[in-house]
């Protein structure tokens, strides 16, 4: 059992010497552009520590931030540090984490919950999977610190069933942490206790939405509900709840360790820190890249990504998954952050970046995402349930070059109604790929019109 920072540091020393005596061989070429141009904070332990050994995490300064918080800081101090850091929710919403934690900490309630959203349903996103599989303790530490700051003693990690390795590693990590007294009652003799349970998803993209996720943990169908009330007032089982993404929690320990100012100094004015992007598609170097906010798309695609594969021409890069938009070549010098992506009618989303070459048909890409939303729609509200299927059908007409001018008007009008009247984020953002591709690639839609 570890009951103090000193004991933690002692264990770290022992493990460090063991590691030095038996260094692990790193087989990847860390000198390539793909790695040297990254700033790995969230992914700093990936491939370096053994995710199934808590002592290895501790040897790399793991859990020192948690113990420091319990020893030297008050809940208010933690929230202040988080506010200074400017950390914004990495799940896609980009809501300032400090403000979210502050609002929950202020609510008077005997029971509060911390939920980690590990439902990563965006096709093209796998950064949360990487963190959960390669550095599970980082997530647990972030959640425990959140519990302390907000007055919650119970946490849940909602993991999609398609990630069995992540489930296995997190389960093991919770067991190991509990055994050492780092999770459980009276951590580090501070009086603060925190336990974490894992809950499995079962294949529903809509359960990535906060209220739907909660409905799922409560044992029901994953139907979202209207907000307000927000989760900070009425969340899991009606109690005040913090819901944050895996990547958000993974940033907490470094912020406590190095300070909010350090985090704020990285990135841009409105979006501090780094972001893990998942680069895939028609690009030479695919994989997870972590870069400071403000890095340009051009750097991501060409310097780190190695450019378009097979010598083809770049056409567009899709960001934000089914809720996002397609960005054309002439906007590649955009400095990526939350606001700049909004300005070009896309979103940060979870950080998936799909590169498309000139063989891609943009109407077909829009149709792919709309069809995805139609299949994943929970069916509760009319505009999303019906609208997404009707929009898919309309897009099919454009692909088959059988659309009319009237269809084009209807397509745009329906997109706007679905966007403004759907109950939750799934329906509200489903039209985004269509609206974005109409804005930048209108000629491909016009080519689908045959007005006889």
């Amino acid at each position, binding site marked *: 059992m570890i009951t103090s920072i000193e004991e933690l540091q002692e264990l770290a020393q022992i493990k460090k010497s063991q590691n030095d005596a038996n260094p692990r061989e790193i087989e990847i070429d860390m000198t390539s552009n793909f790695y040297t141009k990254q700033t790995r904070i969230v992914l700093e332990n990936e491939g370096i520590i053994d995710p199934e050994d808590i002592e290895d995490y501790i040897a790399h300064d793991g859990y020192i931030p948690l113990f420091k918080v319990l020893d030297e800081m008050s809940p208010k101090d933690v929230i202040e540090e988080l506010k200074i850091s400017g950390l914004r929710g990495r799940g896609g919403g980009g809501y300032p984490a400090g403000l979210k934690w502050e609002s929950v900490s202020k*609510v*008077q*309630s005997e029971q509060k919950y911390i939920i980690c959203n590990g439902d990563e349903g965006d096709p093209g996103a796998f950064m949360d999977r990487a963190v959960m599989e390669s550095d599970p303790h980082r997530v647990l530490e972030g959640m425990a610190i959140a519990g302390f700051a907000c007055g919650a003693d119970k946490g849940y990690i909602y993991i999609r069933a398609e990630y069995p390795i992540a489930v296995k590693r997190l389960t093991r990590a919770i067991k190991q942490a509990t055994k050492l007294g780092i999770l459980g009652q009276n951590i580090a003799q501070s009086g603060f206790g925190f336990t974490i349970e894992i809950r499995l998803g079962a294949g*529903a993209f*809509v359960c990535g939405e906060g209220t739907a996720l909660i409905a799922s943990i409560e044992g029901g*169908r994953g139907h979202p*509900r*209207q907000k*307000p009330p927000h989760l900070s*007032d009425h969340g899991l089982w*009606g109690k005040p709840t913090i819901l944050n993404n895996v990547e958000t929690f993974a940033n907490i320990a470094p912020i406590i360790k190095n300070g909010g100012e350090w985090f704020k100094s990285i990135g841009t004015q409105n979006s501090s820190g780094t972001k893990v992007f998942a680069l895939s598609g028609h690009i030479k170097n695919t994989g997870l890249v972590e870069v400071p906010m403000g890095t340009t798309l051009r750097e991501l695609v060409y310097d780190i990504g190695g450019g378009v594969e097979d010598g083809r021409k770049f056409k567009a890069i899709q960001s934000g998954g089914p809720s996002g938009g397609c960005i054309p070549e002439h906007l590649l010098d955009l400095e990526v952050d939350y606001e700049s992506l909004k300005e070009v009618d896309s979103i940060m989303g979870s950080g998936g970046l799909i590169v498309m070459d000139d063989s891609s048909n943009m109407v077909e890409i829009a149709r792919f995402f709309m069809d995805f939303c*139609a*299949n*994943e*729609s*929970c*069916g*509760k*509200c*009319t*505009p999303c*349930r*019906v*609208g997404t*299927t*009707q929009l898919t*059908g*309309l897009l099919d007409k454009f692909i088959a070059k059988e659309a009319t001018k009237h269809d084009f008007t*209807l397509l745009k*009008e*329906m997109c706007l*109604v679905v966007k*403004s*009247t*759907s*109950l939750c984020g799934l329906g*509200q953002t489903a039209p985004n790929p269509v609206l974005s591709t109409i804005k930048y690639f209108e000629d491909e839609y016009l080519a689908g019109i045959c007005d006889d």
Partner: protein
Amino acid sequence: MIREKVRVKKFTIDGICVTGQSNQTILEVARDNGIEIPTMCHLKGLSDVGSCRMCIVEIEGRHEPIPSCTAKIKEGMEVTTSSPKIKAAREMILSMMFSERYHTCSTCVVNGDCQLQSKSVELELSHSFTPYLNQRFEIDASHKNFVNDPNKCILCTRCIRVCDEIEGAHALDLFGRGLGTRVIHDMDEPWADSTSCTSCGKCVYVCPTGALYEKDISEEEIIKKREIVTELVRNRGQK
């Protein structure tokens, strides 16, 4: 649990000053003051789910409209119940309901007593303009008194809510998700075989369309007693 204090709040609806209690919704206060907002999935006496999106209103300071059946009132709120944008959205949503499934009024047993029809009159919608989806579902006529016709269903879930909240049997729930969602009994078994249904008929009373109806009654004789649930809840002393 947080104990909410109930206070009187003052706000405006369409420029008119109104007051209500803090635990009331915009829809409730509007109706108390004779201001009409079209609804579909709402039925007084049942919980509100905000799923049909018909009752959307605009709130000053909010970018997008929200359903008035679930929105609690706030001091100083400025509500607009109708605008060109809202009108167009309501018409499209009603269109979507018609084009989603198979609604043929001339052969429907609730022709003349259907809330989908009355809504079209209210919103002055003369025809549906969203693409027809031509879905076809099987009808369940196994029960001796009632029929479940999913082709007329608009998934308002009033039937599920009344069976769960008022009758307490929870014989009904939803199968699947998305467009193919269906209202089912027990484990999608024929109504006649349901071990949970008490045959009380409340689901038939509250159904806004001809998705649930009584057998052996002609179109002229059918009267949907939708308000019976509202009366029942009031008589029991519940909210």
